[in-house]
């Protein structure tokens, strides 16, 4: 527990990997350019981010109340709501809803990564497809999603071209990114139509309307969740805000700080398709609200900040340590990455690993500058260190 050797060996090793470095350098340079443009073009965004911070603070302080409102709204519309206290419980509920021998299409979702849901469902005899291009690559190339927004940030286009060539058995031009996207799209197209279940996370959840909000750029989410007859949304309890108007604000802040002038698609789902009304969409709407450490964290004056995180990925792009080791920081077992990843791992996963990785932080504070919520990661990570150091 107190020996940091493994952490240091892992990080030293990956920091010497030239492919990782090239991939990170490109992604970070591109993000920084986009970010500067977005900040200039949408100068009001900082104010909106401040407003969202207030919405999140209120929501986390009223988590139970909002949860009650959300459950009521989902069920009033004919959906089913569940509260899972642990990852285990969530897997059990979802496992039952999916069954075995089914085809599942998935939207990219960190919360389902936290549950190791894909692995779990596959083990139970289902066919599961990640439909986000980056996450699709991670499904086959591993080792884990390396960034909130850009899970395959560790892969260069050269690597991807090589993989697709093998996987699809066709010639692939490494400079034709659009062409590669099209290839994967074509492969997935059939899956959407044959899928029995669609699963997503949520970028925000409006309690009063019982509505899931999902941002995306590839139109894969709308296909994976509207075509299959059954839809399951996995919602971390911190995602719930009071109203749709609040959720819209959250969504705008996420996409702008994620480096997008606009995201191509924003989906909201508010209930199942109503029979006999000609509605198109899944007839079953299941929402799993996931606790898994969030309730406890909401009562901890310092750890609580973790729950304000919108998972926009800005701090990861701009963290100096991340720039050298990418998502390996927080460890290969964690679904999460970087300093904020260590915090999320501490809240939802393995506290020991998270504590060891907490010592890697420089406490330099660039993440605070990057973050729309101005989350003080150095403060939280130092607190995690303190909790260990006082015991040993």
């Amino acid at each position, binding site marked *: 527990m107190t020996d940091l050797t493994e952490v240091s060996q892992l990080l030293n090793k990956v920091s010497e990997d030239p492919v990782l470095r090239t991939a990170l350098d490109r992604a970070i340079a591109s993000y920084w350019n986009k970010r500067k443009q977005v900040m200039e073009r949408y100068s009001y965004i900082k104010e909106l981010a401040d407003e969202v911070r207030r919405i999140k603070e209120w929501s986390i302080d009223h988590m139970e109340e909002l949860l009650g409102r959300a459950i009521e709204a989902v069920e009033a519309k004919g959906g089913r709501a569940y509260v899972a206290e642990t990852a285990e419980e969530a897997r059990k509920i979802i496992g039952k809803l999916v069954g075995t021998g089914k085809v599942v299409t998935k939207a990219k979702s960190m919360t389902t990564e936290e549950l190791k849901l894909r692995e779990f469902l596959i083990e139970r005899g289902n066919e599961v497809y990640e439909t986000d291009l980056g996450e699709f690559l991670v499904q086959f190339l591993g080792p884990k999603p390396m960034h909130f927004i850009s899970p395959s940030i560790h892969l260069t286009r050269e690597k991807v071209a090589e993989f697709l060539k093998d996987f699809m058995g066709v010639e692939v031009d490494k400079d034709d990114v659009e062409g590669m996207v099209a290839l994967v799209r074509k492969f997935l197209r059939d899956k959407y139509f044959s899928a029995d279940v669609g699963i997503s996370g949520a970028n925000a959840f409006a309690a009063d309307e019982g509505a899931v909000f999902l941002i995306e750029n590839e139109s894969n989410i709308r296909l994976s969740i509207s075509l299959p007859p059954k839809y399951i949304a996995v919602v971390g309890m911190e995602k719930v805000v009071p109203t749709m108007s609040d959720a819209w604000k959250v969504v705008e802040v996420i996409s702008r700080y994620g480096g997008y002038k606009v995201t191509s698609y924003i989906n909201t789902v508010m209930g199942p398709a109503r029979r006999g009304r000609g509605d198109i969409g899944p007839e079953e709407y299941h929402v799993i609200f996931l606790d898994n450490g969030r309730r406890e964290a909401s009562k901890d004056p310092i750890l609580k900040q973790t729950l304000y995180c919108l998972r926009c990925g800005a701090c990861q792009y701009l963290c100096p340590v991340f720039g050298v080791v990418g998502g390996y920081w927080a460890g290969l077992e964690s679904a999460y990455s970087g300093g904020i990843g260590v915090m999320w791992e501490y809240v939802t996963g393995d506290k020991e690993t998270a504590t060891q990785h907490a010592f890697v932080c420089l406490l330099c504070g660039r993440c605070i500058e990057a973050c729309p919520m101005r989350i003080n990661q150095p403060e939280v990570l*130092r607190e995690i260190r303190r909790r260990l150091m006082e015991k040993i």
Partner: protein
Amino acid sequence: MDLKAVKSLLEENATRTWNPLGVRESYCSKWAEGLNLPKKGDTLLYTGCLYQMIPYIQTFSGLLKRLEGLGPFISNLALTMGRLLNSLGVNITSIMGIVTSRGERERYFSILRRIANALKTAGVDFAYMKEEPYNGVLYHDLGMDELFREHVVRLAKKIRETGAKKVITVDPHTTYMLNYLIKEFVDDFDVEVVHYMDVLLERGYTPKVRGPKEVVIHDPCYLARWNGVIDQPRALLTKAGVRVREPEFSRKFTGCCGGPIESLFPSLSSKLARKRMEELKASGSPCFTVMCPICLTNFQREARELGVRVFDIMEVIE
């Protein structure tokens, strides 16, 4: 590296010398020799000892890096051995002192002397501490709050004993600690804290060029982000006629030198230093200026291989 061993080593060094590396307080105040400074006064120049510790940090971390390469068993053994020797009354730090070159040690004293002289020229009267305590920040960074508390309670008392109502600081970490951290641990710390650059500018001090005429500026994280001292070094450099080049990541978005994790992750720390230095180099000059002893030492180590030179701001101007 094993945290238990690190913790015990730090605690033992603190018990012996109030310094994480065992550097003596009487050594830390050597910069003031010959300056005829009083020991009491309204204003105190408190250095926090980081500049003075640079040669020791360099020797120590060079050692750690080599040990890290030899594997966990050896590096933990070395930490334990260090403690053992300590307990036998062998002062490793003074052995390290022999290893570090005299010229090196002199360099960091002279930076402090230049700050003192500039303040004097600007008409500031100030006192110094004959036994100058370390700033305690490492303990806080590592989450060793009890040791930090003990350390800063004593520090606050020592500052009070000088009669100072105002403390002038020279490095970002000490500045931040006195402005913010100490207040969480010491109830009645009501001394005004100012960075020396603010004092110089307020007094209308005009420096002269001493080093290169063109430099790339590297904002230290704790100076720019945590203390908001951003325009001041630029103003001083410009006043002296030095041309300042801005790197892509500067001011509030400055990039860390990697120094803060150098004691636990020495190899990773030097990779971070290199990456930042490449960014700096890309802004068009092989001469960098920094305003923090941690940045200075972490960059210094990689400087030769990258073909660049690293200066403290007080080596560029005077």
